[in-house]
Every structure is written in structure tokens, then in C-alpha cells.
């Protein structure tokens, strides 16, 4: 009951905020479209960062191919809504227009997530048997292969990019799915399965010796992570109404890595913080755009040298405010003299 109430409250809050921001709820009340767009892109980045953190931060497997899965989600969901959009709408004609939009988006995202998950499985099974650095390069390679492959499919525009995607995603849907990804990753990490992931991160050989099927755990975590990336990509396409493979180069993957490294590998709130911080800094430093990436790269190196665990480290944001648990409860109080 409590969870259902929280979910309804979240939907209501997002709905009201969406209305307020876009100016459809109260006449004359809105925020600038630029700020709204930055906030929406931040939401998509949250989805990508949180999902990448599952594999990079919690499972300790360094993947640099997230943009590839994002591309699969973006293209396949856009393909569904563009090609079958009219037919799906006709089938749902008993619903009001906004519900049709929502249902269409959900169907598109579901297809995108499914295909990204399948791709994640196909990529993950062979490559997750590798360790460390090799995995990084192989995922990078797969990400690029996916991109080149999409670039050669003429049905989705090829090198021209894919245009004419209906604008189905907005602030409401993006943040709804951001909350959904956070929930999914949180539940995965705090399950007994999540413990096996953390065991793999801490010491893969020891985890294997303890009876963890490491490859299976890694693949599942990779599939979940990729399908969420697919959702992020789908929202990206349906928000900007245009996708091009140039948006999904490995530079994009590295951007997501910068977000989670800044925020803290293995911290969900850290990735949210990192994603928001990254987009705030990139937008805020727009007039110094040529120095921007130089600063980010230096920041990355300096963080690795002075605080390799990122801003929040392995811990969650709130844990810094809780009092440390008393471990000495069993010891008798000291005798006062």
C-alpha cells in the first residue's frame, strides 16, 4: 500500500511539475524552454548514468559501450512509433489523445528496451568472460560496430539521420523513467543477487570460489543495464524528434563514464549527482565551450589521483548524514573514575 501511494504521489508530482514547466497547467506560468530542455536532457542522463553504474560501479566490469545500447533503443523505438504509430493509434482510438501518446511511447520504449536487452545479451555473453581492460576495449568495439551497422541501415535514415519522430517524451515521462531506473537499480543492488554483483566487484576469484556463477551474474547485470540504456535512448529520440548515429559515438559513452566517475562508482545517488553536475557544468560553461572538455579531462585525472572513489564513493548521499551505527553496543560502558 505504502509503495502504491508513493508511486501515485510521484506520478502526480511529476504531472503537476510538467504542467507548470510547460505552461499548460496554469496560464502564464512556465519556465524558459531552454531550462526545460536542459532539465529533460539531465533526466535522460540520469537514466544512462544510473544504468551504467550497475555494470561499472556495482559489478566492477568496465564497459565503454553504453552509447551503442542507447542507439539501439533510440532507433528501434523510433522505428516502431514512426512506422506503426498510425496503426497503434487506430487500435487505441477509444482512448483520449494524450493517453494514445503515452501508450504509443510505452510500446516504443518497450521494444527499444527489449532489443537493447537482447543486444546486451549477445554482446555480454562473449565479452564478459574477459576481465578488466579487455572488456573495456571489447565493449567499446561493440558500441562502435552497433553504430556503424545502424549507419548502414537505410530504413532508419542511414547517414542522413532519422527524422520525423513524433514528440512523445516530455518532462513527465523522462523523470518517470528516471525514477523507474533508480528503483530498478536500487532493487537489484539490494537483492541477494546484488550481493553477488558486489562480491564480483570486490574480488572476482574469491566470488567464484564462494560459488557465485560470475559470468551469469555479470551477464544479467549487463542485460539490465543495457535495456535501461535502451529506454534512455528511446526517450532521447522521442524528445529531440531526431536521432543521428553521431549522437551515439563512444564520446557519448565516455561522457556517461565521466558522470558516474565524478559522482562515485557504486553509488546511485552519486550517479544522479554526477549526471546533473555534468550537464550543469557543460551548459554553464557554454561560453568557454572549447575549454570545457579540457577541464573535464583534467578533472577526471585529478579525481583519480586524489579521490578515486568519486565524490560520494561507494556510499549513498544520505548515509553521510546518518549517525554511524554503534558497533560497541555489546561492550559494557566504561567505568567512570
Amino acid at each position, binding site marked *: 500500500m505504502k509503495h502504491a501511494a508513493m508511486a501515485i504521489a510521484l506520478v502526480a508530482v511529476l504531472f503537476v511539475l510538467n504542467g507548470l514547466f510547460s505552461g499548460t497547467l496554469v496560464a502564464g506560468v512556465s519556465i524558459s524552454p531552454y531550462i526545460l530542455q536542459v532539465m529533460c536532457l539531465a533526466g535522460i542522463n540520469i537514466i544512462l548514468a544510473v544504468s551504467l553504474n550497475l555494470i561499472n560501479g556495482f559489478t566492477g566490469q568496465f564497459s565503454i559501450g553504453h552509447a551503442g545500447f542507447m542507439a539501439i533503443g533510440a532507433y528501434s523505438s523510433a522505428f516502431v512509433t514512426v512506422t506503426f504509430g498510425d496503426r497503434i493509434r487506430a487500435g487505441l482510438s477509444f482512448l483520449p489523445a494524450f493517453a494514445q501518446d503515452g501508450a504509443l511511447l510505452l510500446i516504443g520504449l518497450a521494444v527499444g528496451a527489449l532489443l537493447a536487452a537482447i543486444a546486451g545479451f549477445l554482446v555480454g555473453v562473449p*565479452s564478459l568472460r574477459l576481465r*578488466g581492460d579487455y572488456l573495456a576495449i571489447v565493449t567499446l568495439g561493440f558500441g562502435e560496430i552497433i553504430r556503424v551497422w545502424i549507419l*548502414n541501415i537505410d530504413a532508419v535514415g542511414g547517414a542522413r539521420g532519422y527524422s520525423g519522430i513524433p514528440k512523445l517524451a516530455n518532462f513527465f515521462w523522462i523523470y518517470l523513467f528516471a525514477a523507474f531506473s533508480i528503483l530498478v537499480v536500487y532493487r537489484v543492488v539490494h537483492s541477494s543477487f546484488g550481493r553477488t554483483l558486489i562480491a564480483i566487484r570486490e574480488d572476482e576469484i574469491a566470488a567464484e570460489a564462494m560459488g557465485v556463477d560470475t559470468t551469469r551474474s555479470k551477464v544479467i547485470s549487463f542485460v539490465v543495464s543495457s535495456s535501461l540504456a535502451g529506454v534512455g535512448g528511446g526517450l532521447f529520440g522521442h524528445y529531440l524528434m531526431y536521432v543521428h548515429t553521431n549522437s551515439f559515438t563512444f564520446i557519448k559513452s565516455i561522457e556517461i563514464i565521466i558522470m558516474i566517475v565524478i559522482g562515485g*562508482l557504486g553509488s546511485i545517488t552519486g550517479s544522479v549527482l554526477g549526471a546533473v553536475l555534468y550537464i550543469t557544468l557543460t551548459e554553464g560553461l557554454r561560453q568557454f565551450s572549447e575549454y570545457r572538455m579540457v577541464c573535464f579531462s583534467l578533472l577526471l585525472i585529478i579525481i583519480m*589521483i586524489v579521490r578515486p572513489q568519486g565524490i560520494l564513493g561507494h556510499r549513498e548521499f544520505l548515509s553521510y548524514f546518518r549517525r554511524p551505527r554503534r558497533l560497541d553496543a555489546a561492550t559494557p560502558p566504561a567505568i567512570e573514575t
Partner: protein
Amino acid sequence: MTTFLQQLMNGLSLGSIYALIALGYTMVYGVLRLINFAHGDVYMVGAYVGYYLSRMMQGKEPSLAAAFLVMVASMVACAILGIIIERLAYRPVRRASRLTLLITAIGVSLFLENAGQLVFGPDPKFFPSLAPHAEYVVAGVRITSEQLTVIGVSFLLMILLRLFIQKTRTGKAMRAVSFNLDAAKLMGISTDWIIGVTFALGSALAAAAGVLIGMQIPKIDPLMGIMYGLKAFVAAVLGGIGNVPGAVLGGLLIGTSEVMVVGYLSSTYRDAIAFGILILVLLLRPQGILGRVTKEKV
């Protein structure tokens, strides 16, 4: 047949470039177990140093001596750059986890790419011709003097490297460090010095590759290091990472197969072929063609 030979020739000259860059990857991996992501960008810097030096020499007749001078100067500059990178970025995190090392390397790579765009300008530059141009036709195959220079110089450098590693004291110390860093340290080898030398040598070879590519394909830009670097890395893995002759073999194989794919299939798959090869290698023979199997121990 002539087409095939022509492609083979083009593949060999591209492959020698990959081989030169791959040597740097494999040597650094040998001593530090680090994929030096920034290596491809050092190669880019090498090409730019060569570009600016040859612009200074403009007006003079293109001659082999000038080309030689430019190449040596660029190699020295990049050797210094390699030592600086190692000293400032990698040494502080050397004892940290490999993930930290990897992210640092990505950071250095991003830094060089973006600083390069800032300093050299983001638009491509055209490399002035350094050496006199000539063309030879052997059995219907067109061979340019640039291709001959590329192949000749690369092989000369590789032989020199081989001699250095096998015959000198420093080379012996390098082999010891790559065999076991801690044991080498206990034997009184100054590992910091050896790691520095390794970075210097690798970076110098990358710079040579940068100047050579400038002579062959005279268009250079600040992001050129990414793809060449990745493919050279694939070459190092294909030959067996940490293995010097393997890197050369891998480079030639990658270069040739890339040219063949472009020639016989489609140029859009140019960048995908190397990764396809990488994935196959890692699945079928993860230690590479010449590599030895190492078991991970606790």
C-alpha cells in the same frame, strides 16, 4: 591478381604504421599492465610536431635529410611528452586499482584530444611534402616513394627496437620489469627509470608513425589518434599483448585486412573490421597469436 597485389602493398604500408603504434601499447602493457589509452593521441601530437617543423622548413627543397631531421625532432618531442604523462598522471595512481589506472588513461587521452583541438585548431591540416615524390610500377603494381619510406623506416625502427631490447643493459632491465616488476625492483633495477624509458621509446615510435602517416596521407586532425590508436591496440592484442614481434605481426595483419575489406567490400566497414577481429581473437585465442597463456593467480 594485380589488384590484390596493389591492395597488399597498400595494406603493408598502413600496417607498418599500426605496427609502430602497437609497439608502444604492447611495451607499456608489458611493464605496467596498463592499456595506455593516450598512446594514440601521442601519435597525433607527433604528427602535429612534424607538421609544424616541416612548415618551418618550407621553401627548401624536399629532401630525405629534411624528412629525417623532422622525424627525429618529433620523436624526441614525443618521448619527452611520454615521460611527462607517465610522471604526472600514471605514477601517482600506479599502486591504485587497475580501474583507476584505466580511467586515468582515458582522462589523459581526452585531455590530449581536447587540448589538441584548442592548440592546433579543430580543422584538418595538410602536411607539406617532405621527401621528393616518385612512383614506381613493378609488375603492374603502383608503388609510391612514400609507401617505400613508410615500410622501410618502420622496419628499420622495429629492428633497432629489437636490438635495444635484446642487446643493451637497459633493454634487459625492461624485459626483467615486464617479467615481474616487484622482483626486478628487488634485484636493484630502478623500475621508475625503466618505466620512463619504456614510455619514451613507445612515444617516440608513435611520433615516427605520426610523421610517416603525414607523408603518406597528408591530412592530419586532432582526433586522428582515436581510431589509429584503437586499431593499433587491436593489433597489439592480436599479436599477443606484451609481445614485441607480435605487435608487428598484428599491425601488418590489421592493416592488410582493413585495406582488403575497403577494397573488396565497402569502405563503411573500415572501422568495424578491426573490432570484429578483436572480438574473434579474444574469444578464440585471448592470448593472441604469439602470446603465452598466463593463468591468473590469487
